[in-house]
């Protein structure tokens, strides 16, 4: 444990999902790059993305990047920064062609071009009717892009350190100059000394009980940024995907509805017609999730229970096999149902975090005053550009990852060569060693899993699709109590060095408990309903008081809140109806 492992690189990228890999591809030629990942690169959670990647290629019907930009802004309930949405929509076609050139096996049209399909909130003519904008490879689009970008990194000889968790940032005089990481194979503490650090550590859906997220999505990078006093942005906006497999939370892609699937209540009624008359089942995710919860609350869940049906039976076996084969297989395995013959029980599942590390359009992390933090970048779900505003549209996530992962890489290539290497503090890893020692010395108390379970239940119950002041305050009390318990009585069952997943989960739980608190504090401060943040006590959107981003940061031991203006360029806020 006491041996020191020191690595020196120009840049350290933390996380090997699509954002991290795309940034790595960009920087591998111009800088000395190290990639650290908690899992092997091909096992990152980007690989679970099913439906597709959005780009107005117009391969199937007329489309334009401006419509895409509008949908992104409207989808985000006008909290989307419009300069960011413009970058995203304008760059989308280039990004998808680039992925095709790298080898992504997109499905094809009869004329050989990339096939596209309909998705939630994708429309033509500024909301008129659904448009086919999602480029896809069956229902494993994320997985094949992940594999392709990994291949690009192999081709460039990128050095990957797999199965290392980043457990601290090294910050000296406000400059980020490295990370501390823990090697799971040996429990050795590694110090990475770098001119710049890019955090691409993904989301943190594991704060909630029912989630489509993987076990590794615990928001480690986001937590570290917050712990060092840097701000997080829009943390109250948590997306619940309408169609998680009942009880499990495993995702059934929106592509299922894009291909013609229909949601039905206990009477067999296609209820989305009542909530979104124009585009029905293809309304934005927050709208559909709320509609499902309403149906359930009003007793129209299947058999009066807390789920509805997703009906794909009319799509035909062939189409299911060709375009929705993975989800068909999930349904067969976990429910014993053949979706060609029987409807799928679904309920909303925590899916995506719109909030995260506040960044500019070049992936540079920002401080409370909005100035770039020297040496720190963030991209992907852990970052908040903010391109998704209050609610992300389907297929904009993969796009965000490759567009802003690349931009962060470009910016590092431009700046890092002229940057000085900040000297490493002599005791860089001391705090980490102490933290690990503290966790390992207690021999009785409460197991991490117990606290995690209580956190996840509480967040699900009081901070899910619907929220209220009293619920959020109760949850805050609970979560702070759990943090207290964590500090005073969490203990490890196993104190060994090899693949100590007990220790790993205890460290991750600290992230989850902190981020849970940050979500609750942010949610309590926003007394309006906007996008995925739906307040029972404040059901209306309130542009007068809340058309701004929320910033949350730590000052000494206190949580502080701030605001940041929304960038509005082309589209003035108006009521959001589908």
């Amino acid at each position, binding site marked *: 444990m006491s041996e020191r492992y020191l690595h020196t690189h120009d840049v350290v990228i933390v996380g090997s999902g699509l954002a991290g890999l795309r940034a790595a591809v960009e920087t591998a030629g111009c800088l000395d790059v190290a990639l650290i990942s908690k899992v092997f690169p091909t096992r990152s959670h980007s690989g679970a993305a099913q439906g597709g990647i959005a780009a107005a290629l117009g391969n199937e019907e007329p489309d334009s990047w401006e419509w895409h930009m509008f949908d992104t802004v409207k989808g985000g309930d006008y909290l989307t920064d419009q300069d960011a949405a413009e970058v995203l929509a304008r760059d989308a076609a280039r990004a998808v*062609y680039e992925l095709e050139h790298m080898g992504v096996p997109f499905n094809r049209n009869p004329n050989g071009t990339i096939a596209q399909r309909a998705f939630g909130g994708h429309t033509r003519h500024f909301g008129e009717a659904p448009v086919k904008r999602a480029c896809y490879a069956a229902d494993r689009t994320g997985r094949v892009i992940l594999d392709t970008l990994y291949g690009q990194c192999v081709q460039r000889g990128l050095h990957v350190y797999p199965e290392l968790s980043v457990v601290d940032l090294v910050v000296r005089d406000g400059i980020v100059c490295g990370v501390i990481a823990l090697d799971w194979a040996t429990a050795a503490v590694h110090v990475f000394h770098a001119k710049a650090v890019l955090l691409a550590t993904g989301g943190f859906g594991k704060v909630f009980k029912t989630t489509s997220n993987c076990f590794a999505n615990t928001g480690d990078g986001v937590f570290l940024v917050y712990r060092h006093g840097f701000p997080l942005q829009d943390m109250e906006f948590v997306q619940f995907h309408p169609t998680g497999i009942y009880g499990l939370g495993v995702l059934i892609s929106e592509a299922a509805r894009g291909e013609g699937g229909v949601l039905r209540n206990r009477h067999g009624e296609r209820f989305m017609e009542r909530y979104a008359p124009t585009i029905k089942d293809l309304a934005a995710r927050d709208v559909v999730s709320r509609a499902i919860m309403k149906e359930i609350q009003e007793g129209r869940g299947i058999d009066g229970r807390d789920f509805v049906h997703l009906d794909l039976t009319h799509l035909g076996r062939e189409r299911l096999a060709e375009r929705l084969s993975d989800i068909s297989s999930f349904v067969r395995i976990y429910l014993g149902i053949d979706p060609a013959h029987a409807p799928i029980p679904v309920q909303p599942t925590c899916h995506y975090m719109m909030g995260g590390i506040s960044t500019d359009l070049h992936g540079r992390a920002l401080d409370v005053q909005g100035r770039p933090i020297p040496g720190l970048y963030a991209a992907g779900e852990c970052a908040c550009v903010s391109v998704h505003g209050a609610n992300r549209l389907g297929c904009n996530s993969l796009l965000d990852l490759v567009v802003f992962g690349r931009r962060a890489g470009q910016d590092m290539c431009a700046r890092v060569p002229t940057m000085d290497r900040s000297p490493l503090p002599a005791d860089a890893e001391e705090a980490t060693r102490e933290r690990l020692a503290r966790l390992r010395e207690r021999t009785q108390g409460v197991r991490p899993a117990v606290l995690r379970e209580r956190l996840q239940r509480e967040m699900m119950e009081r901070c899910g699709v619907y929220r209220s002041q009293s619920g959020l305050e109760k949850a805050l009390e609970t979560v702070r109590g759990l943090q207290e318990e964590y500090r005073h009585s969490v203990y490890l069952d196993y104190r060994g060095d090899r693949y100590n997943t007990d220790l790993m989960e205890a460290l991750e739980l600290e992230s989850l408990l902190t981020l849970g608190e940050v979500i609750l504090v942010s949610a309590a401060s926003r007394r309006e309903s906007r996008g995925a943040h739906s307040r029972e006590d404040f059901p209306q959107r309130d542009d007068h008081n809340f058309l701004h981003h929320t910033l949350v940061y730590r000052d000494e031991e206190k949580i502080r809140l701030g605001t940041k203006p929304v960038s509005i360029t082309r589209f003035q806020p108006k009521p959001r109806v589908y």
Partner: protein
Amino acid sequence: MELSFKIFRYDPQVDREPRYEVYRVRAEATERVLDCLNRIKWEQDGSLSFRMSCGHGVCGSDAVRINGRCALACQTLVKDVAQAEEVLVEPLPSFRVLKDLVVDLEPFFEKVRWVQPYLVGGNHVPEKERLQSAEERKKLDQVIRCILCACCVASCPVTAENDRFLGPAPLVWAFRYIFDSRDREKEKRLRAVDTQDGAWGCRNHFECTRVCPKEIPVTKSINFIKREIEKVLR
């Protein structure tokens, strides 16, 4: 129901040799074996190590041997193993054990990297996408399902005897680029696997195909490579 799990335990740092430990777990028939492993770790014995991540068969992390068959713990349901008196959980065979159910996958990933898992598209880069017919694309449909879980490699009788054999999954990844109509290095790729430790190492045992959690026709794909070698190189 209540089940007995007999789990392989080994920490090379402290144990002289492997042992098995038995745990009793309550579980619903529709739960996953992964849920049971987690319950054991979270409630009974935190020293048990295994990998997991997505929990629904897309990341490939939690491949283990369950009752003698290599599979993903997150795709194996309790009802599928409950008939056994004791559910036996072991690490993937043919791999070096690092701790309990965690094996050293580095030699496996090294072989995947060896097949050059990236498209070589030539110098001409068009402005838009390269065209590829739906039929050409269809040839890749099954192999792009591979999640590198290594169940196939662990089950292969050839791999067990010859660690130089490239193995099923790396050959599947070779297939993925050999048969991509956009790739310009088909011949070079075919030559690379035209060896006794490459495609010809496969003896058609079909174990890989039997265990593949993504239902990829692995053996058949390797035979397609062999046929293509005969066609293009001879």
